[in-house]
C-alpha cells in the first residue's frame, strides 16, 4: 500500500456560518510519523478499550483506501452495519482488514431486529432467529470470527431493551465469543432509552445521536452522565446534526470541526463517528483527533448554526404555555410541514380542519409571545398555513 506523501490539503477548508476557516493538515506518510503525532484517547466505559476520540462512521464510504488512510493515521475504531449499502459496506471493510492485525483496530457493526413497529415496539415477527442469521451474514462479509462491539440497531423505545428474544440473542453471542461487547444504537427518544439502559447492567456500549442542535440537551446530558457512571461506553453519532450544510440549497456550510468538538466537549462521550467520504473530510477530522479545544470563532459558528431554523418542529411543546390563545402550535407547525415539507396540502387541510383553529388564528395578537426552540417565526408560519382553511375542499389536490 503506497502512502500519501505529496497530498496537499491547503485548499481544504470549510466556511463557518460566521466566517471562513482554512485547514492544512497533512496525513501521516509513514508509521513513524504516527508515533510522534498527538492523538487523544478516551476509555470506552467498562469495556476498557482505549479509543481515539475521533472514529470512522463508514456508512457512506466506498473507497477502502480512505479507511486505510484513517487507520494509518490513528483512527482505529470503525463503525458499520449489516444494512449499510445492503451489505457492501461490511464486505469492503472485510476485504480491507483481512491483511491487518486483528487487535490493531476496533470493529463495530449493527444488526436491526426485524419487523419493529414505527413506535419502536417489537412484533411477533421480531425473532432471535432472524437477528442471529443477519449477524452471521455480517461476520461472513467481514471475514472475521468476532466483532468487537455488536449493536442492536435503532432502539427508540425502552420496551425493545426488555424484549427477551433479542436481548438473549446478543448475550449468547457475547458468551460464545462472537462479539466482545454488546450495546445498541439509538436515533430517536435517546434520553429516555439511555436512561432506561443505564438502570440495568446489560449493556456495555451505546451509540447515540448527539449534537449541538438537540432540543432536550439537559435531559440528554443527564442520561449520558448516568450511563457513564454506570460504566457504559458512549459513542456519539450524527454530530453534524444532519449534514455539512445548514440549508437545503447548500449555501451555508456548517463548521464541521466545531460541531465535532462540541460533541467531544462532553467528557461522558468517549468517541464520535463522523461520516467520511473523502480525504478532505479525513484531513479535517485528523486535526480534531489531536485537539478538541473549541475556539471562540468555532463557538460563534455553532451559535449561528443553531439559529438556523430549518423546516421541522421537534414537537417539544415548550412553546405552548406562551400563547395567550392556547393554540396547538406544534400541530400547526406539523400542518405547515405537511404542506411545504411533504408537499401534501391534503394532509395539511385535514389536520387544520381537525384542529379547528380557523383561517387567521393569530389575528388578535400584534406581537407573538411564543419563543420557539428552533427559532421558528411561529406567527408567520401559522398565518401562512392557516389560509388553507379558506380554500374549498375540491381545490385541494
Amino acid at each position, binding site marked *: 500500500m503506497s*502512502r500519501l506523501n*505529496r497530498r496537499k490539503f491547503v485548499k481544504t477548508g470549510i466556511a463557518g456560518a460566521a466566517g471562513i476557516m482554512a485547514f492544512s493538515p497533512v496525513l501521516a506518510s509513514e508509521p513513524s510519523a504516527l508515533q510522534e503525532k498527538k492523538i487523544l484517547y478516551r476509555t470506552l466505559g467498562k469495556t476498557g478499550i482505549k479509543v481515539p476520540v475521533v472514529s470512522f462512521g463508514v*456508512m*457512506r464510504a466506498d473507497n477502502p483506501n480512505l479507511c486505510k488512510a484513517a487507520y494509518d493515521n490513528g483512527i482505529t475504531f470503525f463503525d458499520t452495519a449489516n444494512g449499510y449499502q*445492503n451489505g457492501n459496506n461490511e464486505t469492503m471493510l472485510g476485504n480491507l482488514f483481512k491483511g491487518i492485525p486483528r487487535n490493531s483496530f476496533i470493529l463495530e457493526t449493527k444488526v436491526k431486529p426485524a419487523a419493529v413497529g414505527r413506535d419502536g415496539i417489537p412484533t411477533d415477527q421480531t425473532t432471535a432467529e432472524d437477528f442471529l442469521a443477519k449477524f452471521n451474514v455480517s461476520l461472513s462479509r467481514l471475514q472475521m470470527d468476532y466483532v468487537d462491539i455488536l449493536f442492536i440497531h435503532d432502539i427508540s423505545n425502552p420496551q425493545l431493551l426488555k424484549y427477551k428474544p433479542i436481548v438473549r440473542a446478543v448475550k449468547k453471542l457475547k458468551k460464545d465469543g462472537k462479539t466482545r461487547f454488546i450495546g445498541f444504537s439509538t436515533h430517536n427518544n435517546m434520553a429516555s432509552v439511555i436512561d432506561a439502559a443505564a438502570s440495568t447492567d446489560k449493556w456495555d456500549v451505546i451509540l447515540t445521536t448527539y449534537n449541538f442542535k438537540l432540543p432536550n440537551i439537559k435531559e440528554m446530558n443527564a442520561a449520558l452522565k448516568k450511563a457513564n457512571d454506570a460504566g457504559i461506553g458512549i459513542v456519539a453519532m*450524527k454530530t453534524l446534526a444532519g449534514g455539512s450544510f445548514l440549508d437545503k440549497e447548500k449555501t451555508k456550510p456548517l463548521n464541521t470541526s466545531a460541531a465535532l468538538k462540541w460533541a467531544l466537549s462532553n467528557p461522558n462521550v468517549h468517541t464520535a463517528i463522523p461520516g467520511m467520504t473523502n*480525504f478532505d473530510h479525513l484531513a479535517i477530522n485528523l486535526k480534531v483527533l489531536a485537539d478538541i479545544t473549541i475556539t471562540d470563532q468555532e463557538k460563534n459558528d455553532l451559535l449561528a448554526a443553531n439559529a438556523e431554523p430549518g423546516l421541522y418542529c421537534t414537537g417539544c411543546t415548550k412553546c405552548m404555555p406562551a400563547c395567550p390563545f392556547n393554540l396547538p402550535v406544534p400541530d400547526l407547525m406539523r400542518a405547515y410541514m405537511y404542506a411545504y415539507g411533504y408537499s401534501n396540502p391534503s394532509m395539511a387541510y385535514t389536520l387544520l380542519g381537525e384542529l379547528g383553529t380557523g383561517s387567521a388564528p393569530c389575528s388578535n395578537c400584534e406581537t407573538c409571545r411564543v419563543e420557539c426552540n428552533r427559532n421558528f417565526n411561529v406567527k408567520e408560519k401559522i398565518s401562512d398555513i392557516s389560509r388553507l382553511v379558506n380554500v374549498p375542499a375540491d381545490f385541494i*389536490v
Partner: protein
Amino acid sequence: MKYKILSCIVLFASVSFLYSQELSFPDMQGYKWSTNYPVYTPDNLWDFIDGAAETYLSYNFENLHVAEYKKGRNVIKLEIYRHKDNIQAFGIYSSERSPSFRFINIGGQGYKADGSLNFFKGKFYVKIRTYSKSEKILQSLETLALKVADMLPGESVMPKALSEFPEMGKKKNEETYIRESVLGHEFLQDAFKAMYEVNDMSFSIFLIDKSSPDESRKVITSYLSNAGVETDDLLGGKYVFKDGYNGDIFLSWKDTRIVIISGLSKDQTEIANRYTSEILR
C-alpha cells in the same frame, strides 16, 4: 381580499405541482394495500431511512412513496424512490447491489435476496420486502414487482455509458455509478465504475463524461495539481502518477471524457493503455 385569494392560489399551484407527481399503487389479489406514510421529500427522507438518506440525496432523490400490502398477519412493504433520471436511479440501485444476489429480469435490472426484491426502472428505484418466511408471500414479492414495473414510466434499460466498458475481464454485476467523491476526492464526481480481473490482476476503471472539454480540463487540472504534477497547456493525453493511498493512477483524457484506472502498477502500463484506448477510441 384579492391578494389573499391570489396568495392561496399561488400556494396551491406550487404544492399541488409537487403533489401531482404522486404515484398510484397497484392492487394485488388477496392483499389489501394502505399507506400511512407521507410522501417523503428531500427535506424529510431522514424520518424514514435515517442516516442512509444522505446517500439517496446525493443521487438526486426527489420523492418516495411507501405502501404496505397486508394479507392476514403478513405484510409486504413497497417503497418507490423517484430520482432525477435513469443514471441516478441506477447509481443508488448499484450502490446496494452485490454480485452474490440472485438476479431477475425486471426493469433495468433487479434481484432477490433474503425476503427482499429490489429493481430499478427509468428514474425509479423500487424496494419490496417482507419479514414473512411463507413461500407464498415470498412469491408474491415478484408478482407485486412485475405490477409495479408495468405501472412505472420509463425505459427498462441500463445507462448507455456502461456499454463503453470493455468486456474482457469485466466482473459481472459490479458496475456502479458514483455521484460524489470518486476515489475519495471531492473534485471527482459522476463516474461510472467497472471492476476487472485479468490474469490475477484486479483493477477498477472509472469513466467520467463532462459537459465540455473545458470542464474536463478543470477536473484533470484539479487532480494533477492535488497529486503534485505540473499542469501546463492541458489539451488531452495520458498521465501516470501516484495518488497517495490510491496508489498508481492512469489518467487519460480526450475531449469530454476522462478515464481513470486504479489498481495497476506502473509496470502494467501496457494493460492500462489497452483498456484506455478501447474506451477512448
